[in-house]
């Protein structure tokens, strides 16, 4: 039986995911990609993706959305609502895994590959939303070409980071929780 999306565990997972994504992202915000707006190389995108996969789409969305708001605000004072939603989607989509994968199978190669694929889809959908709304609402970008450049660069880096790191983190978490009561 699936638990409530607003149980104590879910609430704490959303908060921890948010704080973790923000805290780990702050140092990585210095790694800016030249020429594509305020896009940084963030290996930490794997955090909301992992939270989505392990705790469900809502935990993934909140971790990405609130975590991005917090990290941008305290590291360089930025606020871009569409990128916050984009980061939320990037964490929510791997949440499909929460419904289709049995928790006891997390260390299996098939499941790790699923996490990797979902991370790529999440990165593509999340960044597509952010880049296209940048263009649609003229947030710093005035041409479709600029929006596409931003999309290709940011989606590619996030997809690669997510595809590699999400399964590694999932495997590490599954191994760490093995044998512990009420952790899976």
């Amino acid at each position: 039986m699936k638990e409530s999306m607003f149980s104590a565990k879910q609430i704490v997972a959303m908060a921890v995911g948010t704080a973790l994504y923000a805290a780990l992202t702050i140092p990585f915000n210095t790694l800016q990609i030249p020429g594509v707006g305020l896009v940084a190389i963030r290996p930490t995108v794997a955090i909301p993706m992992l939270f989505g996969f392990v705790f469900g789409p809502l935990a993934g969305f909140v971790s990405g959305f609130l975590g991005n708001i917090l990290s941008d605000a305290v590291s360089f004072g930025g606020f871009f609502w569409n990128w916050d939603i984009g980061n939320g989607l990037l964490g929510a989509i791997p949440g499909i895994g929460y419904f289709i994968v049995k928790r006891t199978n997390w260390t299996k190669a098939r499941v790790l590959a699923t996490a990797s694929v979902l991370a790529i889809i999440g990165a593509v959908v999340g960044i597509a939303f952010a880049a296209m709304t940048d263009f649609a609402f003229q947030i710093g970008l005035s041409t479709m070409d600029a929006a596409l450049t931003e999309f290709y660069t940011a989606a590619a880096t996030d997809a690669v980071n997510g595809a590699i790191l999400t399964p590694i983190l999932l495997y590490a978490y599954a191994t760490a929780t093995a044998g512990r009561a009420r952790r899976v």
Partner: protein
Amino acid sequence: MIRIKYFPGTTFLHRLDPRTKFLLVILFIFSEVAFLDIRILLFPFTASIFLYLSARIPFKEVKGTWRFLLTIIVIISSVNAFFTFLGVSVQHPHIIAAFWIFKFTVEGIFFALASIMRFLSLAIISLCVIMTTDPGLYAPALSKLRMPYKGAFVVDLALRYLPVYVDELETTMNAQMARGFKVKARGGLFARILNTVPLLVPVAINAMLSIYDVADAMELRAFGAEKNRTWYRTVSFKPRDYVSTITLFSLLILAIVLRTRITTYWIPA
């Protein structure tokens, strides 16, 4: 060392209700999103510095945070202004110097300055709010703003944990460096991504394992059993909050009116 935590104090900012501080942040977000004109941005920029200084946050404690903040903002603003000159289409830019693909223009410099002011003022205010607000007051304040208590709890816990994980990351980094870990990895993209594993795995997994302990503690106190809940600490508006809120609302309206008249950036004639 990056420090993003609450510093107790008795200054005006410390004594303001968190709800008034949220409005302050909203005003700064609006000014950042709405304006590119240096002449207007000078007001929020000066105000943020004034408010920060008035909070008397010990500089020794936040020296590293400032160094990091200034570095990142200068990098971001310069990279974006000089590489792409985003959002600003200039037919005949005034080129000061050019080499390879770089063009240093008067317009680029003013755009970079505007970006620095926009980012810095919101960053200063965000840090001011976090550093002067008791973490125990976020949830009661959000609850009074009619946010469902579970949502208020998420924000409250996230803001409490943020400084913990910032410290944890630094401790982990030092521990790994003592074992020979190098922050700047050599090699291609994959090597660089894999180089973050020794940092991400211990911090993330430790944090995730603690989720169940915190959730258990909350459930033992019957979290979620009732539709509504009360808070041990409460917040209430004082005269200073009424005055500040009215002032901030007036400034917000003024900013909205100004936005309808000034829509672009400014370069001296």
